[in-house]
């Protein structure tokens, strides 16, 4: 993923909606003679395309000791190998129970997640008992990206009924887009004009009987019409290859942002010929793949032998695609060969690709329990997307950590950013409610860099009569008298039904 700060995706992303339907009561449907015949004939062609029903728990970051709200939804999946069903990660995220339903078969089959990739919104499911599908032919995955203006078919179980649905459209655009499931990832996606509705998610998009993509997101009606997006074959194949070793290792990227060379003065200043080749490196994450290898003002001329145009595009099999596509198809430890223009000289740079996790600060969390420490009514939580949204924090220091955690490399100093998110009212903390939603700097003289630090600092009480908590910036220290804490903590736990003092994920 290469950041394009100027791209309009940021505003567009707010209009992106997941296409997973909210669970609705399912009425038993009696099949008529005619209906039976129809499903049977449909069944032959689409028997590998199944409905997925997911029961899940939505974690509660506002009240992190609570288990969260039971929820659910439905989507589509399809068989790509014996007992292996491909779907979207967002269809099965936070799942407690998964059920697969086959065309023309009322029987629910229990399934589980085999692999899940939140960064590219894909998941593989398997059945507990695969017998019912032993005669089903898996769908074959196509070889390449379909051409513009060619017809595709979207098959799935969208809202509006229980039966399988087929819509048809053409390939409208092939581009990098934001994958809204994680909120921080950009990958190749194909825009089609077939109707993609909630419930279609995870369903196959077919061309000439083969998989051309997985339907996964669209816009809400008020933003744009007739635009659905599918995850194309290269992303699917990369996912399948990644999990061959038994685990999913996530995407890797260059960890540098680029800026197009569209102004003649840029080329002149950098001593480049006026040949439309090359893109300028703007920012480099020093902890990422390109750290120490690339610098601001470098110009990338070629990537793995592919010439880079001044807008960052390369010619890949006759298609103009973003140069990021080269790194996109690679894995951790793979090499990337760059031809770099620096100080008016060309040099070859080889980069070993790795994953940069700092951007996860801004990503949505899944399959995770919210972490917290509660102490005498003071609730401490690590900063992340879900916590920030749940508490709707506007404090500028907190926002600064959130916005610049990766780009300003704040993660080097702060493995976690701990925020005093709320104060559960009690006599011990009655003057403290104005001090919530601020970054914790120190507890009992110990600097706070992780939630574990909070727990340790509170457990190892210093000499003196007080526990002292310092917040970043203006304000006064938060002071609790030791002699009051024991009774107050017990009282608060009981009144506010806080079952445990803390939850800290020891293996993050």
């Amino acid at each position, binding site marked *: 993923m290469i950041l394009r700060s*100027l791209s309009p995706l940021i505003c567009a992303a707010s209009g992106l909606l997941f296409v997973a339907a909210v669970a609705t009561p399912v009425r038993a449907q009696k099949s008529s003679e005619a209906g039976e015949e129809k499903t049977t004939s449909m069944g032959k062609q689409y028997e590998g395309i199944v409905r997925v029903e997911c029961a899940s728990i939505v974690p509660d970051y506002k009240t992190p000791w609570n288990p969260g709200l039971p929820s659910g939804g439905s989507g589509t999946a399809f068989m790509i190998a014996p007992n292996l069903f491909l779907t979207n990660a967002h269809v099965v995220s936070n799942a407690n129970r998964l059920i697969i339903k086959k065309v023309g078969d009322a029987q629910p089959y229990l399934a589980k997640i085999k692999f899940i990739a939140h960064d590219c919104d894909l998941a593989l499911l398997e059945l507990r008992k695969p017998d019912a599908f032993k005669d089903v032919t898996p769908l074959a995955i196509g070889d390449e990206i379909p051409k513009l203006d060619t017809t595709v078919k979207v098959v799935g179980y969208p809202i509006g009924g229980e039966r399988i649905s087929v819509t048809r459209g053409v390939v409208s655009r092939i581009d990098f887009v934001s994958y809204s499931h994680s909120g921080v990832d950009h990958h190749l996606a194909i825009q089609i004009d077939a109707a993609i509705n909630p419930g279609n998610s995870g369903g196959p998009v077919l061309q000439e009987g083969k998989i051309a993509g997985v339907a996964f997101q669209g816009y809400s009606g008020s933003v744009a019409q007739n635009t659905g997006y599918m995850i194309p074959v290269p992303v699917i194949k990369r996912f399948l290859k990644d999990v061959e070793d038994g685990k999913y290792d996530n995407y890797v990227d260059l960890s540098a942002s680029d800026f197009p060379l569209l*102004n003649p003065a840029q080329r002149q200043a950098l001593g480049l010929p006026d040949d439309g080749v090359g893109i300028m490196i703007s920012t480099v994450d020093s902890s990422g793949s390109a750290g120490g290898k690339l610098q601001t003002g470098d110009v990338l001329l070629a990537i793995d032998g592919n010439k880079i145009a001044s807008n960052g595009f390369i010619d890949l099999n006759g298609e103009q695609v973003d140069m990021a596509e080269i790194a996109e198809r690679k894995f951790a430890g793979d090499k990337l060969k760059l031809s770099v223009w620096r100080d008016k000289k060309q040099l070859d740079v080889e980069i070993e690709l790795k994953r940069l996790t700092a951007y996860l600060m801004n990503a949505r969390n899944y399959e995770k329990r919210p972490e917290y420490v509660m102490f005498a009514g003071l609730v401490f939580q690590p900063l992340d997307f879900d916590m920030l949204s749940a508490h709707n924090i506007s404090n*500028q220091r907190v926002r*600064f950590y959130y916005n610049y955690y990766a780009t300003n490399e704040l993660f080097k100093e702060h493995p976690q950013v701990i925020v005093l998110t709320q104060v559960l009212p009690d006599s011990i903390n009655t003057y403290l409610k104005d001090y919530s939603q601020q970054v914790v700097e120190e507890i009992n003289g110990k600097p706070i860099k992780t939630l574990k630090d909070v727990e340790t600092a509170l457990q190892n009480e210093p000499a003196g009569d007080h526990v002292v908590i310092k917040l970043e910036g203006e304000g006064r220290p938060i002071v609790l008298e030791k002699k009051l804490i024991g009774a107050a903590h017990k009282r608060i736990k009981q009144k506010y039904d806080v079952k445990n003092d803390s939850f800290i994920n020891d293996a993050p």
Partner: protein
Amino acid sequence: MKRFLLTTLGCAALSQSLLADALPTADTSLLRVNITSQGWNFYVPWQKVNPNTRRGLGALLEGNRVLVTAELAQDATYIELEQADTGRKISAKVEFIDYECDLATLVPLDAPGDFFEGKKPLQIDTSAKPKDKFAVWQFENNGSPVSTPLEFTRADLGEYFIDNERFLTFEATGPVQYRAGTFTLPVVNNGKLTGMLLSYSAKDQVAQILPGKIIQRFLDDAKDGNYEGFPGFGVKTSSTLDRQLRSYLKLPDNDGGVYVSAVLPNSSAEKAGLKKGDVILELGGKKIDSRGNYDAGDYGLLGMGNLTKGSAKIGEVLKVKVWRDGAALDIDMTMLRQDPSSKLVEPYMFDRGPRFLVLGGLLFQELSEPYLGSDERRERAPFMLLYATQNPEKFQAEGRKKLVFLSAILPAESNQGYERMNGLIVTKVNNQFITDIKALDEAVKQPIDGIHKIEFSEFPKVIYVDAAQAQKDNEETMPQRYRITTLKRLD
């Protein structure tokens, strides 16, 4: 000897009765003031906004001066004084204006002739007490005076016109009906000007009044012709009501005192050596309670800010007693004023346009609060600009006097490819660190090999602009296409 004494007594009696007869009224002591204002457009800084004419009322003071609020006189382009009854007008100009205390005096532009004949200047009342009966003076459309009663209920500190500048404010209740053209209403107590009405809530029938004490302080300051303004304290505080905090600070339990949670750089407090963590026990001889208030006699409890931004003059020394490291300490604090124009992000800007520079369609500006504008606009502003307004010390530590940023791009040949950039903080231009717009103006005179190198704190970090083409765009495209003839304002 006797006779002489008698005569003098007789004279005294005579003048007493004359005065009683001539107690000032709206007719004798108020003038209509018509002011046309035209500020600058902070987003298109080479042009002014639409002119706007407002009518208000001014109080006539000694020396043919007319007192109005600064808000009425802001960015004035043309001012008229008008007699309500006859409709006779003369042109006027601003003599002194202080936007923080929201007051301005107007004087005739030319010799007034007999314009003020028969008029009576108002004295200032500085001894109003709660329960006093005030009168709000207005004119009907036809010029006849209207007086409505208000009862002074309480005093407090509040903002006048400029955010975050808190002054003594009177609250008074009563039904005020706004007459036509009544922006700024003089409030009178026993025939003396006791304040200017700042705002009125018709729903609650509550008026906020700028009191006579502040008016007198403003006039006294202006007396020598050199207006200095109000000093500032420069601390942020939090209460010490929390007993746990008090025991931690070893503060005696019933002894008041307010906790200093921040000391602003270059303020009176910082220069005097006050520190974050001090507890202010006394200020100017007054005991400060645990919420930062003091006993202000007739006015009840008032915020201690009234002791520093009330009657105190610049250069005056106030005694501060603080609690530090478990013991009391006396500090002499010389009251200083921080010029708003010395701040990284200017809190307000009137009577002059924002500083900017256009370089081949790239519009650079110095960040100011008026640029950030309304809360609604702020929500869409680039985060770093908002962050800078609240954490100026981080940017000042780098050596900046002002925050120069790229605010917009007017597409032209020299800025091709940069059209969508905006809201970026400039660090260097042609390898020179940019401390303010003047530094930028100097830096753009020295392109490197015919090319301007412009660096930003964030993505895309650096852009290049052809110097000759930018010059051509400045000379041709800007005036001809965008009709911009003023390409920079440095002062």
